[in-house]
């Protein structure tokens, strides 16, 4: 009796925590803004008969100002670069963990997960302390005589990328590990036996067979990084504006809820639609190729 409805639980989850909030955001995004609490008018008015009170002004406003589009593009680029570096560092680590013996493997996995046990804010703040002008890194560099004056390591996009790669690396490693764990090591030996050196074996056997893990890990890093607000805020400078920060300002500084909602809704659509299409195409492809 109960089991029959159990299969619908993911849909229930999706509706409750994704579609309903999304619908609320969409509703606010097409409302007319005003000074007040909440800072927008209702979309259905009943004063003098029924009237629908909606506007697409907010969308026009966002898409006509490069300030918003530019910040979104910046965030996309940041997410791409961060995902690339997470993959570059995460793949060898995940592969090493997956192929090491069971005792070492468990220790390494715990080491990967341990940072999650401390506060995210604290960890990012720790980087601030390490990178600041009189921070540990600059002190070491100065004392070793490598630099003559403190380097400006903080408040630029490099610090942001570093902070994001550091924070999101476990999200790349864990799904990759989960996939590589099942990797048949005989396939690597078979490839070498058939005459391919390590380099070619990596590109002909290991990489193609790791695609599902790479896709899972990359999506898990890419999507949240696009909306990442805290790390650019704490480690970044004023040289580059990111989507998450603009969104925050629009909501809480400018109190332009309809504008912010329009920005958020556009962002979700721009991000989610290609990913959904990609997922559909990808699952068809992987079914066909039986990976």
């Amino acid at each position, binding site marked *: 009796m109960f089991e029959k409805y159990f299969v619908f639980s993911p849909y229930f989850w999706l509706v409750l925590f994704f579609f309903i909030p999304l619908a609320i955001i969409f509703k606010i995004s097409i409302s007319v803004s005003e000074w007040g609490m909440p800072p927008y008018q209702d979309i259905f008015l009943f004063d003098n008969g029924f009237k629908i009170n909606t506007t697409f002004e907010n969308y026009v406003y966002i898409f006509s100002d490069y300030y918003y589009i530019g910040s979104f593009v910046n965030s996309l680029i940041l997410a791409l670069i961060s995902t690339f570096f997470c993959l570059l560092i995460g793949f060898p680590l995940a592969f090493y963990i997956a192929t090491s013996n069971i005792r070492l493997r468990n220790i390494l996995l715990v080491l990967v997960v341990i940072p999650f046990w401390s506060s995210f804010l604290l960890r990012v703040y720790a980087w601030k302390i390490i990178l600041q002008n009189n921070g540990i890194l600059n002190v070491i560099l100065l004392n070793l005589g490598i630099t003559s004056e403190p380097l400006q390591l903080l408040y630029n996009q490099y610090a942001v990328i570093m902070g994001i790669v550091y924070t999101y690396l476990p999200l790349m490693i864990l799904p990759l590990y989960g996939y590589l764990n099942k990797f*048949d090591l*005989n*396939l690597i*030996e*078979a*490839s*070498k*036996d*058939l*005459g*391919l*050196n390590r380099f*070619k074996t990596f590109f*002909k*056997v290991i990489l*193609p*067979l790791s695609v599902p893990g790479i896709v899972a890990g990359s999506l898990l890093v890419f999507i949240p990084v696009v909306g990442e607000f805290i790390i650019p805020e704490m480690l970044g400078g004023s040289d580059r504006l990111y989507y998450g920060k603009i969104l925050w300002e629009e909501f809480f500084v400018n109190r332009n809820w309809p504008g912010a909602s329009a920005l958020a809704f556009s962002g979700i659509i721009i991000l989610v639609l290609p990913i959904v299409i990609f997922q559909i195409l990808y699952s068809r492809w992987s079914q066909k*190729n*039986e*990976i």
Partner: protein
Amino acid sequence: MDNNFLVIENISKSFGDNKVLENINLNISKSEFFGLLGSSGSGKTTLLRILGGFEKPDTGRVILDGTDITNLEPFDRPLNYMFQSYALFPHLNVFNNLAFGIKENFTKKEIEINVRDIAELLSIEHLLNRRIKQLSGGEQQRVALGRCLIKKPKLLLLDEPLAALDKKLRSKTQLELTTLQKKLKITFVFVTHDQEEAMSLSDRMAIMKNGLILECSSPEEIYENPKSLYTANFIGIANIIEIYKKDENFYSDDLDINFKLNKELKKTKTNILLRPEKIKIQSINNLKTSSFNSFSGEILEKSYLGSFTRYEIKVNNIIISVLDQNFNSNSNYNFPKGEKVICSWESESIKILED
């Protein structure tokens, strides 16, 4: 024939404190089908992996066709290795699995021709566009074999080549494998724990135990004249009887009979081997017991195996196995349980075990 085609010289290997191989020496001839037989933990797979280049020996050398290959990487060795799991690439179809090892150095047309040839040889032409998961175990085995043979290796190493197949397919594949090997004249070295498989495939075979080679000879020689107690027990069914010198003859306490040997024996006490098919079983009414090379006993168990019937015969306190061929089409020919019978053998059938 060049019997120094593959020379394995003083190979030793340890994993930590665990000595897996101790001073292995073997010479294998060109075009030989050579079997390494042993139970698990005997070191046979490690030896094969050393030949394949996947493990480095602690000491010793491997020389293939005059070249020392001990320190070569697997991809630089002119040999191929067929894995027990087959290790076929799941992301490639059959064609690309077969072509995997020749894609580098061949043109598209040459690849096409080579793949077709090898597919024809193994009768898998109809499978070329299939994915690996769509293949049966036997088909996968052929693809794995083809993927190696397409490279025309000097030496093919096979790890338990038939272990993953079901019993009926196994005997069919055994025959195909020997035919193929004789046709291609490639040297095959394979590992197995299955003594029947080793016997039917090998030209010569080595019995391994605890990292040592106990014996190395043809299957016939090893079955008929094993040197050690371990080999005698490991290959086929063995009746092992302890005898000692008493007056002019050899006597067994267990059977309470005298043995007549056709060979002089210096030791006063030894184990002898009597294979169950060498023992003749007769009804007690027909004969009277002779004092040499025969005993009378009672049938304790019998199992009808079709072409043979296996009897377990109780004599005093020990049990002797006898295989009796079913010449007669009348099933009543078999002796029933509990029947008293006389067992006898030729003195040539008695094999003295050296250790």
